[in-house]
Each structure stands twice: as structure tokens, then as C-alpha cells.
């Protein structure tokens, strides 16, 4: 195929490729520069490595934590809680949105409550949940769920409502029942919105999980961060934050990947 392109087109493709590579290289340079500068600044005592930590100490911390297996334990716990959080938040939120779509009366009654709950910073409920449920994984998952469910309900319900009225009318002329309208058009046409809500929920659930782990303080990256802060082990805090960033990106990319698969399928 490639050989059949005209010179002009080949030149165009070459330029595009150069730009793309330049972007990637720039990204790598920025990251490397930050870490290099950080390392040098710490070694030259421009900054206090005890407070600011430094890349080499982070690497050592990672190695030490992997040796006793606690790195995988804490990362695994956080990822596990987050996945449970955003999946259950999306599923339960979607179910609630179906109820609202089904009964316009319920939707009208509940509207102000949803608005207030949406505006309320859910992390403020952390201590209450901790007291009610106790210092268990349950509390952390409920936090993650709370953070994502309200947004899910509002987004998915909005998407259900914006389903094309004429498409619904078309099905009605065939004699469709409400269940059929939901199954054949309202739900399928909202799937892209539900998946994009799932993506938002990855981030929101992670916030819930970290706050939950701060409070419960038993395991997870949130626990490592709060523990490290309390005993002034900034290496541990920085390491945990970096692992957290990697884990978050990993989960987000997984959901994006699922989304792409889905879009292709349709």
C-alpha cells in the first residue's frame, strides 16, 4: 500500500510522524528533567531530602517495600476497593436512574434532594460512615460508592431523558411497552454516556478510597500516605503518591480500552 502513495502524501505522513515523535520525546524529557533536577537538588543540599525526599530514596523504598510484599498488598487493596467502588457506583447509579426515568413523579419529588447531595462534599460524611459501619473495608467502599453514585444518577438520568423523542414515538407506533422502550432504545442509546460516567467514576472512587483509607488506617496506599506523614517518613509518602498516580492511570486506561472496544462493536 505504502509504495502506491504519491510523494506529496508520503511527505505528509513523514511530517505527521515527526510531530508525533517530537511530542512523545518532549513528554519524556519533561519527566526526566523533573526527576533529575529533584535528585541533583537533593544531593547538592539545595533542598532537604528528609522533607522533600528524592528519586533515589523513592527507588530504595520501592525495593524495600517489594521485598516484604507490602507494596503489592497495599496497592492491591487500593485498586480492589476502587474497582468495587466505581463498578458498584455505576451499576447502582444506573439502576436508580432507571427508577427516575420510569416514574416522572419520583424524579420530580427527588430532584431537590439530588441537587443538594450532589453539591455536598461527600468526604464530609467520612467520619459518620466510619462510626456507623466501623473501621473496615466496608466503610472505604461505601465512601467510594457515595462519591460516584450521585453523579452517575444525574448523568445517566439526563442521558435517558435526552433520548430522541421521535425514536420513542416510532417504537410506540409499533405498540412498544415501557419496558421495551427502555430496553430497545433508551438504554442502548445511553451506553456511551454510561461508559463515560464509568471513566469519571474511576477518579471519584479513588478519592473516596483514599479518604476512606486515611480514616480507617489499616491498609492501602491511603494508609501508607497518612502513616508516612505521621511518622515523618516522606520517602514513604512520596513513593505511595507516585504508585497511586500509576495505579490511577492504569485503571483509567483500562476503562478507556473497554470503551474503545465497545464503540468498535457498535
Amino acid at each position, binding site marked *: 500500500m505504502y509504495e502506491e502513495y504519491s510523494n506529496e502524501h508520503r511527505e505528509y505522513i513523514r511530517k505527521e510522524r515527526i510531530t508525533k515523535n517530537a511530542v512523545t520525546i518532549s513528554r519524556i524529557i519533561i519527566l526526566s528533567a523533573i526527576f533529575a533536577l529533584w535528585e541533583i537538588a537533593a544531593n547538592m543540599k539545595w533542598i532537604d531530602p528528609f522533607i522533600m525526599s528524592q528519586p533515589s530514596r523513592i527507588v530504595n523504598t520501592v525495593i524495600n517495600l517489594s521485598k516484604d510484599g507490602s507494596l503489592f498488598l497495599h496497592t492491591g487493596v487500593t485498586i480492589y476497593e476502587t474497582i468495587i467502588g466505581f463498578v458498584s457506583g455505576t451499576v447502582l447509579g444506573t439502576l436508580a436512574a432507571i427508577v427516575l426515568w420510569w416514574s416522572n413523579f419520583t424524579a420530580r419529588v427527588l430532584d431537590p434532594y439530588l441537587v443538594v447531595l450532589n453539591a455536598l462534599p461527600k468526604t464530609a460524611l467520612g467520619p459518620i460512615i466510619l462510626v456507623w459501619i466501623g473501621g473496615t473495608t466496608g466503610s472505604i467502599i461505601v465512601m467510594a460508592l457515595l462519591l460516584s453514585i450521585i453523579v452517575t444518577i444525574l448523568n445517566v438520568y439526563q442521558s435517558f431523558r435526552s433520548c430522541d423523542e421521535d425514536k420513542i414515538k416510532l417504537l410506540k407506533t*409499533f*405498540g412498544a411497552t415501557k419496558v421495551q422502550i427502555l430496553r430497545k432504545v433508551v438504554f442502548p442509546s445511553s451506553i456511551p454516556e454510561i461508559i463515560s460516567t464509568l471513566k469519571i467514576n474511576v477518579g471519584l472512587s479513588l478519592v473516596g478510597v483514599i479518604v476512606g483509607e486515611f480514616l480507617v488506617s489499616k491498609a492501602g496506599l491511603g494508609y501508607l500516605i497518612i502513616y508516612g506523614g505521621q511518622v515523618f517518613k516522606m520517602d514513604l509518602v512520596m513513593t505511595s503518591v507516585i504508585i497511586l498516580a500509576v495505579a490511577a492511570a492504569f485503571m483509567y486506561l483500562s476503562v478507556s480500552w473497554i470503551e474503545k472496544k465497545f464503540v468498535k462493536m*457498535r
Partner: protein
Amino acid sequence: MDKVVELKNVTMNYHTLDGETQAIKNLSLDIRRGEFVSIVGPSGCGKSTLLSLISGLIKSSTGEILINNEPVKGLASNVGYMPQRDHLFEWLTILRNTTIGLEIQKKLNKDTMRNAERLLEEYGLGEFKYYYPNQLSGGMRQRAALIRTLAVNPEILLLDEPFSSLDYQTRLAISEEIWLIIKKEKKTAILVTHDIAEAVSMSDRIIVLTRRPGEVKSEHVIQLTTCENKTPIICREAPEFRIYFNKIWKELDVHV
């Protein structure tokens, strides 16, 4: 004469908190079997409301609607509705789109499936049945939409400005094709449109409605002198075409 659809003194009011709107007032009309009737009128004269009333989607405030001499109660089962845009579902294949009505009416079986496939085959979509709507051209999508309506085998077709979303060339070609399909399948058709030329070229009869609240203003039986096989595009060349066009245009009394 064999009346398929009969409206007797139908009035339709819409209610909102801002007040009451009379969409249709005291409207009576008959449609005969096998006829192609167009309803034209100024925008907002209740043309689409009329189709919703005939299909039984909404109930008239007063008056009576009969289909085959039976009053319409709930949804009319022998009426097929074709909306303004094709409204094919992007996530279903063409075949599954055309059988959605059968699926909803729980009539999807080997025979009805074969019939839907026959229609697709016959009207040039056979090889596209496993394609998705976004892989088809506007005209092909419109044809698929008509087949979706025909698949449930309705007696009467209600066409709600079905060509208005197409560009002019496609519109001429597809209105010709759809007219031929409707005639071949021997259906009664009611077309709502604001395109006078389209109405004159396709119809046996045109009913002109007044401004809201819609009433019947006039009726025109279209008789065009053309050669034997008259189709919408050939009809546009008939000498009387222009006369009907001008007459209806004047009756619509458009002020911009």
C-alpha cells in the same frame, strides 16, 4: 366508495400551564383504499398531530376516527408510521433495524423474518443487511426505514415529511423509489409535507389545511396528463403540474 380512514369532526386541544392550544378544529376527511393522499398546510397547522391521531398515539379531544369502519381505540394495529428522519438505531444492523417492529410485537418468526429479508432483497438492500446504518447513504437509510414500517405489514402508511432531511437530488430520487414501493405493495398512504411539488407529483389527492387551528381548506383531485407509466418524476413534466402548484401555493397564503 371503500373508506379506509374516516375522520368525523375531529378537534384536538393541547394543554400546557401557559394555556390551551387548539391544533385541529372540526376536521373531517375520508381516505379511500389504495389512495395516495397528501396533506399540506402552513407550518404548525397540526399536520403531524393529524397523523398521531390516526395512528392512535394520541386521543382526540372530540370527534371520531374510524379505520375500516371501526373506531380507533388505543393504538391502531394496521397503521405504519414513517417519521421525518429515518431514526435507524445505530447499534443494530440493517436487518435488525427492519425487524424491530416485529420484535416489539413479538411476531418475529421464520416467515416474518423471511418477508423482511425479501423486502430488503427486492429493494436493493439485500447485500447490506448486516451493515450498520452509518455505513449507508441517506437514501438507502430512508429505504431501510420504509422497509422497517412495511415489515409489520400495515394497511395504511403514515408518512410524516419523510424526505425533509434529505438533500434535493436524493429527495427526488428517493420519493420516486418510495412511491413505487408503496404502489407495488398496494398500500394506502397519507403523506404530510410542506413541499407542494412533492405533494402534486406523488398524490392522487391533496388536502390543504388552514393555519392553526387546522381545518380543511380545500381538496384537489390530481389528474395529470402523462404517458402510461406515471411516476412522481414523470408527473413533474405534466402540463397541469404548474397549475396545481400555483393554486395550492396561493391557498397556503404564505406571508414571510
